[in-house]
């Protein structure tokens, strides 16, 4: 019999595959510190665990190579190699000789190398250091007779988890992810955002998920409806396959719009840009027809590092992004990190309430050296591409709450520019509008910036006092609520009154219905996950600016709640498109 679980649709697409449960909340049992047996016996026990780990990893590498390709398999080949390392074995054997258990000896030996590697400034070695933790956990699990450990699936699977951090999502080999389904989270959680940018179907906030599914169970994921079918029968599988086929056909149609600029049916231009996380996003963004980027999340450049990236490293990344978008605008948001997205190389106290803590512009002004290094790198990248046809660099500050923060940030920028001997003429500087106090000060803020970018993810969270990762309440913060659309309308009007252009860079912009409403409210630019660009472009091309304006004004006049507004907009736009 087929059961269906329903969560929230988080990334479109459909998939049928076995479940792989990513267990991150099961604590490993404590390891014994001292050995019980003789040295030789304990060393032999360790060696056989290392051998077993090696063959598991070699097997995994072969399987991944066959199913996902050689480049995905290399990571596991390197892991297998680490278990056979003679120096690692020597270190561990020495510890056993001194009385340690095999578990403790293996742990210390792996940790010794991990620490040596993570001391390096190289990103590559820092990643290998993290790999060592993974291999260590595997070896210790074998020693303890445990069979399940946290690791990548062995075949293309529907990844199931309570919650996924961005690094967990990113560390899973893409080729092995058929879909993502999480029990917690909302469509604006990081895992959902990543799933959309990878083009993988996803469902979030799926209650009772972990109690219901188990490893290997066949499931069908519908990323549009948010439905998860357990053990689908043949008819259901055929239906899903037909839907996948239909979506692919639609995709081919959308691909034809790729090189057209974003505009309404009557030719009103709306820039449709991509939000970018890493250099890996560049090719897919270009393939989706992105017109530049309205949000480059530079913090990812910092988060995977154990040490601060050098100015040159940063310049390299920024230049690469600029060169990918000739003639278009690329908005770099200075790193938005804080206690919710901590940096390994910035020591700081834990915070009770990280979303409301020392992050974004607050951290910039509290630790200006990191901020100024980043500004320096941005200005150098701008200078490096000056005179070429590369994209135009713009700088944006996150989490602005009041005017004084903009002034302080600008004076850092001016000082760094003076040190670098460059002028700031025609450099666009803007702010994220994501804090309600900034939204309500838009008239004042607009006098000090060239543009606003409305960050709807955080704005919704702060506006409704809702944690966007909290499954039970995430629905309260609905972008169709009249409060949201009214506030956005006021922010846009305030920006325009002072000559600032206004974009929207939250995930909200990737819903074609809202995108059209935002255009009706006056948005000049929409920056979204790249996968949504073709659909939004298609929707806008079928509506005139006047139709967008009328629809949103009528919906706001008539609708008291999100449901009402959604229905009004859908009816208005369907009517317009049909005409």
């Amino acid at each position: 019999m087929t059961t269906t679980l329903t969560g929230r649709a988080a990334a479109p697409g459909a998939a049928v595959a076995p479940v792989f449960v990513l267990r991150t909340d099961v604590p490993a049992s404590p390891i014994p510190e001292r050995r019980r047996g003789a040295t030789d016996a304990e060393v032999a026990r360790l060696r056989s665990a290392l051998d077993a780990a090696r063959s598991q990893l070699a097997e995994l590498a072969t399987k991944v190579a066959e199913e996902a390709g050689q480049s995905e398999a290399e990571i596991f080949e390197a892991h297998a190699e680490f278990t056979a390392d003679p120096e690692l074995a020597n270190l561990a054997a020495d510890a056993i000789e001194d009385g340690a258990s095999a578990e403790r000896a293996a742990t210390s030996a792996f940790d010794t190398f991990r620490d040596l590697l993570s001391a390096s400034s190289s990103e590559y070695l820092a990643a290998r250091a993290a790999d060592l933790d993974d291999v260590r956990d595997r070896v210790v699990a074998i020693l303890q007779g445990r069979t399940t450990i946290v690791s990548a699936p062995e075949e293309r699977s529907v990844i199931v988890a309570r919650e996924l951090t961005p690094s967990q999502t990113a560390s899973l080999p893409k080729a092995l992810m058929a879909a993502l389904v999480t029990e917690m989270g909302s469509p604006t959680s990081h895992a959902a955002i990543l799933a959309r940018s990878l083009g993988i179907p996803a469902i979030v906030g799926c209650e009772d998920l972990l109690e219901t599914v188990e490893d290997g169970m066949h499931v069908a994921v519908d990323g549009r409806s948010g439905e998860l079918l357990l053990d689908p029968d043949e008819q259901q599988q055929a239906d899903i396959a037909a839907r996948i086929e239909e979506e692919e056909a639609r995709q081919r149609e959308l691909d034809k719009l790729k090189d057209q600029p974003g505009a309404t049916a009557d030719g009103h231009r709306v820039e449709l840009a991509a939000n970018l996380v890493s250099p890996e996003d560049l090719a897919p963004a270009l393939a989706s027809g992105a017109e530049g980027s309205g949000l480059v999340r530079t913090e990812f450049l910092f988060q995977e590092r154990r040490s601060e990236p050098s100015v040159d490293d940063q310049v390299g990344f920024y230049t690469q992004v600029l060169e990918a978008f000739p003639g278009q605008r690329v908005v770099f948001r200075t790193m938005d990190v804080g206690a919710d997205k901590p940096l390994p190389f910035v020591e700081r106290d834990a915070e009770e309430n990280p979303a409301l803590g020392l992050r974004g512009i607050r951290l910039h002004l509290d630790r200006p050296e990191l901020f100024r290094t980043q500004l320096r790198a941005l200005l150098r990248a701008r200078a490096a591409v000056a005179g070429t046809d590369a994209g135009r660099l713009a700088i944006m500050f996150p989490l602005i709450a009041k005017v004084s923060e903009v002034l302080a940030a600008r004076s850092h920028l001016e000082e760094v520019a003076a040190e670098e001997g460059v002028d700031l003429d025609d450099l666009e500087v803007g702010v994220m509008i994501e804090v309600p106090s900034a939204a309500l000060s838009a008239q004042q803020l607009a006098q000090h910036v060239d543009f606003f970018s409305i960050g709807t993810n955080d704005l919704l969270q702060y506006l409704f006092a809702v944690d966007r990762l909290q499954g039970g309440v995430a629905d309260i913060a609905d972008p169709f609520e009249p409060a949201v659309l009214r506030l956005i309308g006021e922010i846009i009007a305030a920006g325009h009154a002072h000559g600032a252009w206004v974009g929207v860079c939250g995930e909200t912009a990737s819903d074609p219905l809202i995108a059209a409403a935002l255009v009706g409210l006056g948005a000049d630019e929409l920056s979204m996950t790249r996968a949504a660009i073709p659909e939004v472009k298609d929707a806008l091309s079928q509506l005139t600016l006047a139709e967008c304006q009328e629809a949103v004004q009528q919906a706001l006049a008539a609708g008291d709640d999100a449901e009402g507004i959604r229905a009004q907009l859908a009816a208005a736009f369907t009517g317009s498109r049909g005409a």
Partner: protein
Amino acid sequence: MAQRTVALPNPSGLHARPAKVFASAAAESGAKVTVSKGEREVNAASVLSILTLDCHQGDEITISVDGEDAEATLDHLVGLIEGGLGEETA
């Protein structure tokens, strides 16, 4: 003991794959082989130890071989490095 210093030609440095090629050759030689960069000298048969040297393209590394036919083994190992350890270096 035979010893020689070479500049690493690999564009992405001595990362896991070329390190493995080198470590396997060092282990198979049967001689005691070390590799050093700056102050640190490590067992050349250990991929992990080689990685901790954090060798980038152009870095000078010194190979030392102790054992029978040290000179011939050294020629072989240096040849492997100059040949890119299985990677394109041009």
